[in-house]
């Protein structure tokens, strides 16, 4: 043992012999957690084939023993009415008997976890549970939405409750810091639209319609959609993670007992920031997208910027701009609400934090796309 950093263990051995109607177990070698694994089956066989009262453990040949070895040896006589009686032991060992008794006295038998149900019924049960969970999720998101609206109304009546500093901070996070990436993405989208249109329109001889194509696509749909998706991927996950981490550290509970309403202090600033910043970001995305389209039109189709802008003014209606803009605050609201709500749902474990952040991003992008479709249908029916 001395001088080595790690002590090597002898393998655990076991001989079982019959002696005057009694079953004698003679362990040998070291019965340590590293070595006893191989003897599990042998001990189990003894347990099943011998009368528990007739089992004798011969400790003479035993080397070192730890609690794992003691547990395994002690298991052989566990079912006897007097498991610690002298009749069960033979031979001498400095610690084994005491350890076996100590371990047995403290051992509790754990119930095995419930087996999962497989097969057809299991599949049906999982589908049912999934549907129910989705329904409950939708209901509680609506409940959260309602709670946020009432908090907002109360704040409108009592404006001094509004928290300016966290709101401005959130606006910087959500808005200013997100502008570069949103502008770059939108620039490329505008350029791609112009390229696609250029090829198609040139083949029918209407190259100049590229202007309308870029304008309508970016103003009506892409500007706001890129903004909403970036908000969902960037800000919404941050909301969920930060509120969720506060929840895990019991900070939310601390706020409650201090008389702070977490909806006022945490949710409202983020919601307000998102609703205010989404249109501004959308505007930035529109400008950048149109700029991208204009550059491509210039380089690929010889539509000069002057011509592009003149045609833009003369042919495109302001309605397209307002259609895009009208969607932005709605998307901002939905994204902020989903992000904050998922953060509030985080429980004590790390797993739930990860699950909630994922759910928050997936749900908000889902909600944005569905709303986008509803808006498209609505504006089509209205003829705008």
């Amino acid at each position: 043992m001395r001088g080595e950093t790690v002590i090597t263990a002898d393998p655990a051995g076991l001989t079982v012999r019959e002696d005057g109607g009694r079953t004698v177990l003679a362990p040998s070698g070291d019965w340590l957690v590293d070595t006893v694994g191989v003897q599990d089956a042998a001990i189990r066989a003894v347990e099943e084939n011998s009368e528990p009262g007739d089992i004798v453990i011969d400790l003479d040949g035993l080397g070192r023993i730890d609690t794992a070895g003691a547990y395994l040896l002690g298991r052989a006589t566990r079912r006897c009415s007097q498991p610690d009686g002298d009749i069960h032991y033979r031979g001498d060992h400095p610690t084994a008997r005491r350890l076996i008794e100590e371990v047995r006295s403290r051992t509790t038998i754990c119930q095995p976890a419930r087996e999962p149900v497989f097969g057809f019924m299991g599949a049906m049960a999982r589908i049912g549970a999934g549907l129910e969970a989705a329904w409950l999720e939708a209901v509680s998101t609506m409940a959260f939405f309602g709670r946020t609206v009432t908090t907002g109304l109360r704040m409108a009546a009592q404006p001094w409750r509004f928290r300016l500093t966290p709101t401005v901070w959130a606006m910087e996070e959500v808005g200013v810091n997100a502008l570069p990436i949103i502008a770059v993405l939108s620039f490329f989208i505008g350029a791609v639209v112009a390229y696609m249109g250029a090829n198609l329109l040139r083949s029918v001889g209407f190259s100049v319609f590229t202007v309308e194509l870029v304008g309508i696509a970016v103003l009506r749909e892409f500007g706001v959609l890129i903004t909403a998706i970036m908000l969902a991927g960037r800000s919404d996950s941050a909301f969920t993670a930060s509120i969720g981490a506060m929840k895990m550290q019991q900070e939310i509970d601390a706020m409650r007992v201090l008389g702070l309403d977490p909806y006022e202090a945490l949710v409202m600033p983020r919601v307000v920031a998102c609703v205010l910043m989404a249109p501004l970001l959308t505007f930035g995305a529109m400008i950048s997208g149109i700029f991208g389209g204009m550059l491509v039109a210039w380089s690929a189709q010889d539509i000069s910027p002057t011509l592009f802008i003149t045609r833009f003014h003369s042919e495109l209606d302001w309605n397209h701009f307002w259609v895009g803009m009208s969607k932005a605050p709605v998307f901002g609201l939905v994204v902020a609400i989903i992000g904050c709500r998922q953060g509030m749902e985080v429980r004590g474990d790390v797993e739930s934090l990860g699950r909630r952040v994922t759910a928050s991003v997936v749900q908000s992008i889902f909600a944005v796309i569905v709303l986008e479709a509803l808006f498209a249908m609505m504006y089509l029916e209205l003829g705008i």
Partner: protein
Amino acid sequence: MSAEDILISVRGLRTQFGDHVVHDDLDLDIRRGEILGVVGGSGTGKTVMMNAILGLMTPAAGEIRLNGRLFSEMSAAERRRVDSRWGVLFQNGALFTSLNVLENVMAPLREHVDMPISLMEEIAGMKIGLAGLQPEAATRFPAELSGGMRKRVALARALALDPEILFLDEPTAGLDPIGAAAFDSLVLELSRALGLTIMMITHDLDSLYAICDRVAVLADKRVEVVAPLRELLDHPHPWIQEYFHGPRGRAALAGKEI
């Protein structure tokens, strides 16, 4: 005493975070088979010292030896074997929150030991019982446990591999007095039965009186003194006097009637 009785020796340890020096020229010996208590005011770096010994942080200077072998010279495989021979109870339990209690205790077994899963489960269940938990706790998740239960699960996990060295960071903090006393007697029983070497950071004066063979006092960035508690009581260092002869120290002393 001979050098062979020293299991872990720390020489000239220096740790710092940026400009903030936590330890400077710290020496400590942990003898084989002893229960060493570590005390010190808040912020004196008790946990940092434990982390340095465990290799969780790299000290700025100094050497740490296990059985005379320098940690810094060990191969990765050797370190891995050493890691499986010590158990650690972190201050906050540090349980894996995505695993239930039984799986938490089984985690080191799965990693280091070759044995049938059913036996692993039984042994994990035994450790859970050993740490004083009810069997119903086995299927619960750490987030559903009370602070005291979490401590016990952490102890069960630290004991899973029947370590030779056990590091306990404030094991009885947050336990009720009865639970703390039971914990102390469990630690004592285990150390005697298994020949464990234990380093225990604690503020619990009752634990110090009840089970520690020697007590190391951290003050002024180093180990001020290591001695059996009886001798410590007369040490002139002002913090030590305050610690053991303040109102709480006197109460614990009176309870023990040394």
